[in-house]
């Protein structure tokens, strides 16, 4: 799609991913990989976290392993402006009066 002037910065993000980015942002910008998978599964987003990093690049969102024992995988948001802009675009930045999704 061609972005219009005033649209959020590319790459384009859809509603489900914007909601995931907003979720990540409100959790300090990170989550355990298992938590992220649980969120995506329960919200029925179909998001694959490794696929996400591959598609959007580790400069925007990346997966790390922790130094702790046992080591864990951790998803970390890096591009705050990009995530902010798309979350605002879809109206998922702040609580909303519209209907809520079930699990």
């Amino acid at each position, binding site marked *: *799609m061609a*972005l219009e002037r005033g649209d959020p910065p590319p*790459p*384009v*993000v*859809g*509603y*489900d*991913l914007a*909601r*995931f980015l*907003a*979720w990540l*942002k*409100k*959790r*300090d*910008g*990170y989550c355990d990989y298992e*938590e992220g998978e*649980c*969120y995506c599964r*329960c*919200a029925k*987003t*179909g*998001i694959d976290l490794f696929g*996400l*990093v*591959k*598609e959007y690049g*580790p400069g925007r969102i*990346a*997966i*790390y*392993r*922790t*130094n*702790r024992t046992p080591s864990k*995988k*951790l998803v*970390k948001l890096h591009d*705050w*402006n990009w995530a*902010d802009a798309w979350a*605002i*675009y*879809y*109206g*998922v*930045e*702040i*609580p*909303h*009066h*519209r209907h*809520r*999704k*079930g*699990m």
Partner: protein
Amino acid sequence: MEEDNLPELPSSVEEYIGVPYGGLFGETVITHVVREIVADPEREFRPRYLAKMTGKSNVSVRDALDKLVDQNIMTKEYMDPQRPVYRVNPGSKRLDALTFLAYAVIDDREGTHCMRDAVFEYCRREVAFRFAGEHEREKGVSYTGASPRSLLRGSQANPGRYAESGGG
């Protein structure tokens, strides 16, 4: 990025992971639960899901949820008597404030402007809501909940691979 070849998390980041709101309210069960409901306020919550996300027991999560119901931050519904469903009260100003706090934690740490942007969007939405309310009261129609930006533009971005649902 291959699963077997992941980069190591910078030690500066490891200091703050796992503690809600940068440790401001300690590490109580209710703080973890609040973080989860603030992060995804559109969801219907069940104690089992929150227990999994917070790493706390079902019983302690249920107690925390009941406290939030008492505080009128959440509502509890019994569609199935054995499995109550909890929803956020979308009119709760404390929920809005906690959302801003979540962004403020990031801003203080990263030097970003997430809270400023969220406050700006909040104000725009409140203005649009009031305007739409007055306008629609005149016309006798109800507010649909669209964001101010989409109200102004009347169109949505083309959903990419990760956004097929088209909105909540």
